[in-house]
């Protein structure tokens, strides 16, 4: 199975929790069609940083937490299927996959 080198940016609180900097670079397996998906990125992210389990998506359902958003290539991908292929710019590492905390609260 081939992999892609993906760049991921986390919200500040999750960087602190995972003890990482502004951007993570990690290897993510491609699916059978050779594409990278949100699910594959999050699976790889949680495997490398298990303390993030449950903080981005629900433990059981894997549903995205309501106040988080997934952006890439200036697009909001939050409502796409987690199995939809991500833009090739993300798979190639040209553009980062952004996990963003929604503006809410005080």
């Amino acid at each position, binding site marked *: 199975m081939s992999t892609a080198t993906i760049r991921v940016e986390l*919200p500040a*609180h*999750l960087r602190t*929790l995972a003890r990482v900097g502004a951007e993570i670079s990690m290897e993510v397996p491609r699916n059978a069609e050779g594409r990278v998906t949100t699910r594959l990125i999050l699976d790889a992210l949680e495997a490398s940083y298990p*303390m993030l*389990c*449950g*903080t*981005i998506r*629900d*433990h*059981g359902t894997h549903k995205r*937490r309501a*106040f*988080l958003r997934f952006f890439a290539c200036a697009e909001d991908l939050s409502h796409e299927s987690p199995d939809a292929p991500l833009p090739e710019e993300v798979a190639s590492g040209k553009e980062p996959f952004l996990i963003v*905390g*929604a503006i*809410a*609260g005080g």
Partner: protein
Amino acid sequence: MSGVRLLVGTKKGAFVITSDGKREKWDVSGPHFGGWEIYHMKGSPVDPNRIYASQTSGWFGQLVQRSNDGGKTWEPVGNKFVYDGVPGTHQWYDGTAHPWEFKRVWHLEPSLTDPDTVYAGVEDAAIFRTTDGGQNWEELSGLRGHGTGPRWQPGAGGMCLHTILLDQNVPGRMFIAISAAGAFRTDDGGKTWKPINQGLNSKFLPDPTAEVGHCVHRIATHKARPGVLFMQKHWDVMRSENAGDLWTEVSGNLPTDFGFVIDVHAHEPETIYVVPIKSDSEHYPLEGKLSVYRSRTGGNEWQELTKGLPQHDCYVNVLRDAMAVDSLDKCGVYFGTTGGQVYCSADAGDSWSAVVQNLPGVLSVEVQTLP
């Protein structure tokens, strides 16, 4: 020289505050987990340097942190709280059936004998247990499953299991309380539970003396006499002589019997403390004067304690998990406010001084008495 360590959970982080036995000068460490809500922290009675913290956020959900060095350093442990089986439904605010959904951990209660065993009270109301230091959590589902669950309903703060009392005299006995379901007891380590709400009277219920549905805010007991329970209900301060089988009102001469906290003196099982709050719709002290009330008779006869507390323009609240007592002689009493103050009385309530004054709103206060 002996000392104390306060574990203060706030809306924006955790604070660990220490002093020697005089309890006059304080060292403040924090915020730990800055920006996160810390609903509760508590240390193991058998290993005081083992501390657990409930860290939560509307954005990122629930984390549990563990310290093995008295709160200097922390590591995240397991945060997977999955209800056993099909979660089922409880009553929603409009009376419709609403599925059980995990939201956060309100209270962590370490075992009296094993530092790796901890009980967690969560919202939506359930009790979980870890036996491996927090790595894995398993629901004690006999509580939710005993039959009255579909009639439980959330209070304004959510349907939370906020109080867990472990009985050191009767093996397997625990007491818990839920807003708004009431108090429950297990005598077999959490396998089976029974409601213990007889004697409670809640006018907001269609049947004020119903088996469940009562908004219990807090229960407390003296560790040497755990069969005698004290309760701060939504309204009413209550007492039970028989492990909750029957409650009687002991509000007595309190100026208002609404409130959240209640606690018991470490050395005097009949000395109890409450902080009266004006009403269920006005969550602040009467006339802007912050007072603790103490009863040395187990209720009914209450004495106002004000020395050192603000007596004008004070409109803070004291939340249900935000009072604690140490076991020094004289007994220290502590409470935190939604205004970010933590107060200490080193003389069992006779006089008070501020430990800190400008923290984020205080959600919980625990104290450890250190050798």
